[in-house]
C-alpha cells in the first residue's frame, strides 16, 4: 500500500460536518480530469456515514462506466472484466476504460506499509489543495435535525412464576 505522489484536498474543520459524498465526488471527478486518469478506485462504503454513493456519483459526473462492489478485476484486451458482489451472488460485467471502480472486502487483503516505505514516503510529493481549487463549495445539502444515542437499557424484572410472567406481559401491553 502507498503511492509515489499524493494530493491532499484540505477541508477545514467547520466545513467537515457538511461534507457529503456529492462534494467528494465532484472533487474526485475534477481531479480525475486534471490528472488525465484512466481509472478511479475507491472503497465501496465508508464506515462513518455508510453512504455507498461516492463511486456512483463520481462516475456520473465524469460520464464514465462504473464497476462497484468489485471482488475481482481483470484486464483483457483493454477492457475491464469486473466481478461484483451482489445480493444474488456474483455478477461479472465488462467495462471500457476510463472507469470508476469501488472495492469490496473480497477484492484482496490490504498490505501494511513497510517501515522502509514509510520513511521513503516522507520525501514524496504531497500537493495541498482546497475544494475551491476544484470549483466546489462545501454547501450543506442536508440539515441534521437530531442525533441521539439509543435509550439506555432498562433493568429486567424478575418474576416468581410463569403465571406472573404472563400477567406482567399483559400489564405492559405486550400481549393481548
Amino acid at each position, binding site marked *: 500500500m502507498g503511492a509515489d505522489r499524493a494530493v491532499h484536498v484540505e477541508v477545514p474543520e467547520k466545513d467537515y460536518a457538511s461534507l457529503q459524498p456529492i462534494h467528494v465526488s465532484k472533487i474526485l471527478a475534477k481531479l480525475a480530469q486534471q490528472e488525465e486518469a484512466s481509472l478511479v478506485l475507491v472503497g465501496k462504503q465508508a464506515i462513518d456515514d455508510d453512504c455507498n454513493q461516492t463511486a456512483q456519483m463520481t462516475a456520473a459526473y465524469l460520464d464514465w462506466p462504473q464497476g462497484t462492489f468489485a471482488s475481482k478485476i481483470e484486464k483483457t484486451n483493454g477492457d475491464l472484466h469486473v466481478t461484483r458482489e451482489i445480493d444474488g451472488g456474483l455478477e461479472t460485467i465488462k467495462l471500457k476504460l476510463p472507469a470508476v471502480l469501488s472495492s469490496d472486502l473480497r477484492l484482496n487483503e490490504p498490505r501494511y506499509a513497510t517501515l522502509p516505505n*514509510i520513511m521513503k514516503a516522507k520525501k514524496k510529493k504531497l500537493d495541498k489543495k482546497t475544494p475551491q481549487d476544484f470549483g466546489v463549495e462545501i454547501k450543506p445539502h442536508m440539515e441534521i435535525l437530531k442525533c441521539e444515542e439509543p435509550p439506555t437499557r432498562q433493568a429486567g424484572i424478575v418474576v416468581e412464576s410463569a403465571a406472573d410472567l404472563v400477567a406482567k406481559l399483559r400489564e405492559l401491553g405486550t400481549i393481548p
Partner: protein
Amino acid sequence: MEGGVVATQGGVCVDLTKMDRIIEVHPENFTATVEAGVTRISLNEYIRDTGMWFPIDPGADASLCGMAATSASGTNAVRYGTMRENVVNLEVVLADGRVLHTQGKGRATKKTAAGYNLTNLLVGSEGTLGIVTQATLRLYGIPEAMISAVCLFPDIRSAIDTVVQTMQCSIPIARIEFLDEASIDASNRYSNLNQKLAPTLFLEFHGSKLSVQEQADAVGAIVSENGGSDFQWALKFEERKKLWKARHDLYYAGKASIPGAHAYSTDVCVPLSKLSEVLTETKKDVDAAAKFLKGHLVGHVGDGNFHVLIAYDPNLPDAVDKLHDLVDKINRRALAHGGTCTGEHGIGLGKRKYLAEELGEVNLDVMRSIKTALDPNHIMNPGKKIP
C-alpha cells in the same frame, strides 16, 4: 502444550484476558508496552500504520505476556529470535504481592548492564516465579519485500544438509521449515494444498527487493547442489499467507489424519550438527510404531528444533503406551545428542522428568533456591517446571 496451566494441587487459575490495554507504542524506540490480555495479532493490527510489527509467531493468536511467560518461539525465530531476545521489560506480580519491574519502571533501553537479568529470568518461568501483567516488547520494521518458496528433496538428509549449509553461509533466511511426507499429505488434505509427497522445505526471505533476490538465488544454488527440485515461488501476499497458515495448522491437520484422534507434539531441539542424524533416527522410530499411531515430522530446522505431531486413537489398545514410549525415545535421543527436550513448548507438567538429565543437579538446586527465594510458600503454579 505441556499442562502448564492445570491446577494439579487445586488452587486458583487467574485469567488475565480482560486486562487488554495497549499502554504505549514508541515507533522511534521500536518498543510497545502491552497488558497481559493483548494478543500478538491485535498488537500487530494496532501498530500497522507505523510500518512495524512484532514478528514472533507461535501459530496461535497467543497473548504476548503468555508468550513471555513461556518463552514462546515461532517459524521466524531463525531470523528474529524468540521471546528471550525480544522482551525488554516485564511488570510482574510476585508471590507476596509486590510488583516487580524487571528493567526498572518505565525503562525500555535497547541494552543494559544494570543489575541481574531479571527480565530473562522471568521469560519462560511458566508462572512459577510471578504473574506477568505487562510486557515491553521489541518491534521490527516490516521488511520491504517478503517472498516464500517451497522445494522438494529426495530424502530427509538432503533437506537437512540444505538447511545446515544455508545457515553456514550466513544467509539471513527468515523462515526455513521442514515437513516430511506425512506432514505434506496431512496438509494437502486439511489445508487444500497441492504439494507432491516428498520431504519438503518451506522457505521465506525478508529484506529489500535486491537482498531478497540475492538470498533466494544463494539458497536456490544450495538446494540444487543437494538434489532439491521443484522450486515454487509464492510472491503474492495471499499465496504466502495460505502456505504459512497450512504450516501453522499442522497440529490440526495431523490430528485429522485419524478421525477422532487425540494428538501430542514433541518439541526437541538439537545442535545443527546433529539434526540430520536425529531426524532420520526419529523417523525410523515413528515408522516402527505405525500400527498404533501416526507421526508427522515438522519443524523449525534452522534452529535445530522439530516437532513430531503424533495422532493416536486413545481407544486403540496399547496406543497410549506406544505413544509414551515413542515420546520418551525422542526426548532421550535429543538429550543424548546434546539437545534439549523442549525448544519452545516449555516443561510444564509433562517434561519435568527430563530436567535432571538435561540440566544436572547443580542447575536444579540453583533453580530451586531462586524459586524458594521468590516464592517461599510455593503458591505460584506448584508442581510445574522444576521437579
